[in-house]
């Protein structure tokens, strides 16, 4: 293969295995970036009063370290493995939407590059801590553009995550092989399912919070600098995301560890059903524990007591799951290979991390621990110890499958021993440093913190170095490793029934299951993997546009132009239906007969609901606290609001009718209804623009006060959704005039209709909240 086609292949691939490799390699790259930053600030903390980084560089280093590790390294590493192995584990030949999957990857890569490039802006990168606490992160206290650019990177990542979420939920729900019931799914696939469910509900509030912060920084909208609870509002919005995010990072690794322990114990997992129930309970509970991050803010004691109890409760399901893992070892046939050592090691570290977390669920103890190194030690035991170590186990476990060759076992074990010891040297001293504040760049000799910091720093450097052992081992074994064969570990899930590395189309025949292992196959139509440059181009153009916002507006226009052309081209190829595949469904309970696209839109709608709920929640939060907030009908022209509401309701009627007409084959009326919907939607936007300019001419502009800022953000975000819906309807109109719909084929109309009705429903609440009461 010559050089050009090699590059072209990787830029245009939509094959889940290629994208899995891209994700894994990129995540490892960001792991190195984040780890190098940690090496640097551990030098700064090595001794009291060190003069190595200084406060500004130190704060940037810890902020980027946190953002990169949590959002761009550990979780994407799990998603690299998920891209590769979830389709294989459920017996599918790809994800439900391969091009969207490529889009997720490229958005992820470019968002990470955007984040890292913020360091080179004047004033440096973000230096406010990865938690972005307001009002420190507002323009008044941190005016440098790096903070805004990093925020934009987070929004871009949230888009990537939302697409990935939809993709995995639809894939796991709809594309399982015959006989692959829910309870037969391997634990790793369960882990990814739980993770994407968490992401679906956790990322929209983060995106909303960052959007409000961006409005704060760009337009001067005073959300988080409001003296009436602005700082507390950030806490609510951030931690509503932030706590579930911990489980987002942890659960794929934790459940992958269970698969590995089961394989190397030579038996099935004990009480798999109860583990799944337990983790499900933990996923639900994880949304009602986040106030424990705000125990010291002085908010309502009753709320804190309730959340303290729920936080203690969440330890119980994790205890059940961990106990089942230990019970699996009982009378097993244990083989202590490298993956097993890492898996077992991660359980040890999870026990310590979990126990120290119980302290933090206690309001009275957390009063002190909040903001100290105890917290740092605790969450590194969870995210690095239980999370990353289990993912390393996964890398060793799946290396033979992905490359077809074995890694060097001796060096694998050496890696485990060095990393396990140095990990504890690095993080255990942090528990003993429970008087030392987090995120201080220096400390005085008389504090007595020096010896423990010295140990931690040395441990940290060794831990960072030990990572290289794995990289070198993997790199060398690519050429000299012994051939692995199909199933080197005698494991019994589906990915081990096909050659290593798997062929392009994965399965020759789709496997059928009557127990947990495959026992036959069915013939299906041939699967074709498409190539498309558009996901790459769209992500690149967004990246350029965002860089332009911080440097030169010309770049933004170039980016938007490329974006527009790419989307137009995407339309063209879609209308020609070059990418359509035939859909076959085997095991799809409880969504039998629900077409993939439609299920995908429902998932998207659930996520968007949370986005608007967060904006409305922020509005109500500020409104009930701010004295003298005027009643909405005294500001806005009720007639315009009423007319616009009726217009939008009518457009919902017309698109609902369009679906009915196309189902009955009345194509003339169908096209007319689509056209009417487009006109009505356009009219809504035009009236909105007219209304905004009227309001602005009366001095009611964003940034003026909270009343105006909340109004413009909420209605502006809604208007953006109307515009997106209009793009969808335009697509339907083109397609309808090309004769691509008939009484059998109308899923596009149905899916975009669902989205359009959702936008309508949002307005049904925005209208009373912002115009009437």
């Amino acid at each position: 293969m010559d050089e050009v086609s090699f590059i072209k292949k990787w830029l245009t691939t939509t094959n889940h295995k290629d994208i899995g490799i891209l994700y894994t390699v990129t995540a490892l790259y960001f792991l190195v970036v984040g780890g190098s930053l940690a090496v640097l600030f551990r030098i700064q903390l090595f001794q009291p009063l060190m003069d190595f980084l200084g406060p500004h560089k130190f704060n940037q280093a810890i902020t980027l370290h946190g953002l990169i590790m949590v959002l761009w390294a550990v979780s994407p590493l799990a998603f690299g493995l998920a891209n590769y192995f979830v389709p294989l584990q459920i017996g599918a030949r790809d994800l439900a939407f391969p091009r969207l999957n490529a889009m997720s990857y490229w958005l992820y890569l470019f968002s990470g590059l955007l984040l890292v490039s913020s360091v080179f802006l004047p004033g440096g990168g973000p230096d406010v801590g990865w938690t972005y606490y307001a009002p420190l992160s507002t323009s008044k206290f941190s005016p440098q553009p790096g903070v805004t650019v990093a925020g934009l990177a987070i929004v871009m990542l949230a888009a990537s995550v939302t697409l990935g979420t939809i993709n995995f939920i639809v894939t796991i729900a709809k594309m399982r092989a015959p006989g692959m019931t829910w309870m037969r799914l391997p634990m790793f696939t369960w882990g990814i399912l739980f993770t994407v469910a968490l992401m679906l509900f956790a990322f929209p509030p983060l995106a909303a919070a960052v959007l409000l912060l961006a409005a704060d920084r760009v337009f001067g909208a005073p959300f988080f600098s409001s003296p009436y609870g602005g700082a507390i509002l950030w806490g609510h919005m951030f931690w509503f995301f932030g706590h579930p995010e911990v489980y987002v990072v942890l659960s794929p690794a934790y459940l992958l560890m269970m698969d590995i322990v089961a394989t190397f114990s030579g038996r099935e997992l004990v009480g798999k059903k109860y583990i799944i129930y337990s983790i499900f309970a933990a996923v639900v509970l994880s949304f009602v524990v986040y106030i424990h991050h705000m125990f010291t803010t002085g908010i309502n004691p009753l709320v804190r007591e309730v959340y303290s109890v729920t936080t203690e409760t969440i330890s119980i399901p994790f205890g059940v799951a961990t106990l089942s893992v230990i019970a699996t070892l009982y009378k097993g046939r244990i083989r202590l290979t490298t993956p097993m050592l890492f898996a077992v090691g991660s359980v040890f570290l999870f026990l310590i991390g979990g126990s120290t977390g119980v302290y933090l669920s206690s309001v009275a103890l957390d009063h002190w621990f909040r903001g100290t190194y105890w917290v740092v030690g605790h969450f590194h035991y969870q995210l690095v110890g239980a999370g990353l170590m289990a993912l390393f186990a996964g890398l060793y476990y799946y290396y033979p499958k992905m490359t077809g060759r074995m890694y060097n076992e001796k060096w694998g074990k050496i890696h485990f021993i060095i990393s396990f010891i140095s990990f504890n040297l690095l993080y255990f001293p942090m528990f003993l440093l429970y008087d030392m504040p987090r995120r201080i760049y220096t400390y005085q000799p008389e504090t007595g913190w020096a010896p423990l910091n010295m140990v931690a720093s040395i441990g940290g450097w060794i831990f960072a170095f030990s990572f290289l052992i794995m990289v070198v081992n993997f790199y060398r074994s690519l050429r000299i490793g012994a051939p692995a064969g199909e199933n080197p570990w005698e494991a019994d899930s589906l990915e081990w029934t096909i050659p290593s590395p798997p062929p392009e189309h994965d399965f020759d025949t789709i496997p059928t299951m009557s127990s947990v292992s495959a026992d036959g196959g069915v013939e299906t139509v041939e699967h074709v993997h498409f190539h498309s440059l558009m996901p790459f181009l769209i992500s690149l153009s967004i990246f350029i546009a965002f860089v332009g916002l911080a440097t030169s507006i010309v770049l933004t226009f170039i980016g938007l132009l490329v974006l527009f052309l790419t989307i137009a081209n995407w339309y063209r190829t879609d209308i020609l239906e070059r990418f359509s595949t035939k859909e076959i469904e085997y095991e799809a309970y409880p969504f039998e007969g629900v077409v993939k696209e439609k299920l995908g839109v429902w998932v998207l709608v659930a996520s968007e609901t949370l986005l608007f709920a967060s904006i409305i929640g922020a509005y109500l939060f500020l409104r009930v606290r701010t004295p003298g907030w005027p009643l909405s009908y005294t500001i806005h022209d009720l007639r315009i609001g009423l007319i616009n509401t009726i217009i939008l309701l009518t457009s919902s009627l017309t698109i609902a009718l369009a679906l009915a007409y196309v189902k009955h084959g009345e194509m003339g009326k169908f096209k007319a209804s689509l056209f009417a919907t487009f006109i009505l939607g356009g009219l809504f936007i035009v009236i909105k623009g007219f209304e905004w300019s009227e309001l602005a001419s009366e001095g009611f502009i964003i940034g003026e006060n909270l009343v105006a800022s909340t109004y413009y953000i909420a209605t502006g975000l809604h208007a953006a959704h109307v515009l997106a819906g209009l793009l969808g309807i335009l697509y339907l109109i083109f397609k309808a005039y090309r004769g691509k719909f008939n009484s059998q084929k109308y899923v596009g109309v149905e899916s975009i209709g669902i989205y359009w009705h959702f936008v309508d429903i949002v307005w049904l609440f925005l209208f009373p909240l912002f115009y009437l009461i």
Partner: protein
Amino acid sequence: MAPGPTADVWYSLFNLYTTAAVAINILIIIIFIYFLYKYRGYRADSSAGGIDAKKLAIVFVIVSAIIFYSLEFYTLNAMRFVEEVPENPDMVIEVDAFQWAWKFIYPNGTESLGTLKVPRGTLVLFKVTSLDVHHKFGIPALKASIDAVPGRINYLWVRFDEPGTYTVRCYELCGLGHANMMAQIIVT
């Protein structure tokens, strides 16, 4: 002798949690290591192992619920003790946090930057707020701490039973001077 009641309460709760955590972890880790050692390369019974997973799960849920909720009971007691704002404090001190120092305002209106003098054994009520960004007012020796949030007054009471000099630090990242945002409380 502990320097004050808040530290007493905190340390006794901390010791309770530590006792429970160490005991449970040692038990689990011993079983864990024993299994790993005993069944290494073991070839007898690779199918079931004879464990009733349902019974195991139920027993564990009940046992751990008892442990966790009794710990929580002590937590809530301690929380009410340290959070109850005293009705008749001996001294009310306003604390204004700002980038990057602490200002103390005595009851008579005198302001002091970075130093506070209180007599031993007085019940001091701090009214803590911030003039700019989110800070956290913490006295390590007393394990007493509360957030300093702009636009909001939080209450924290302490009693210094031992004379000496106590350090106050900021425990929430507040910008470039976070590490050096300290103050002294001199107890005579």
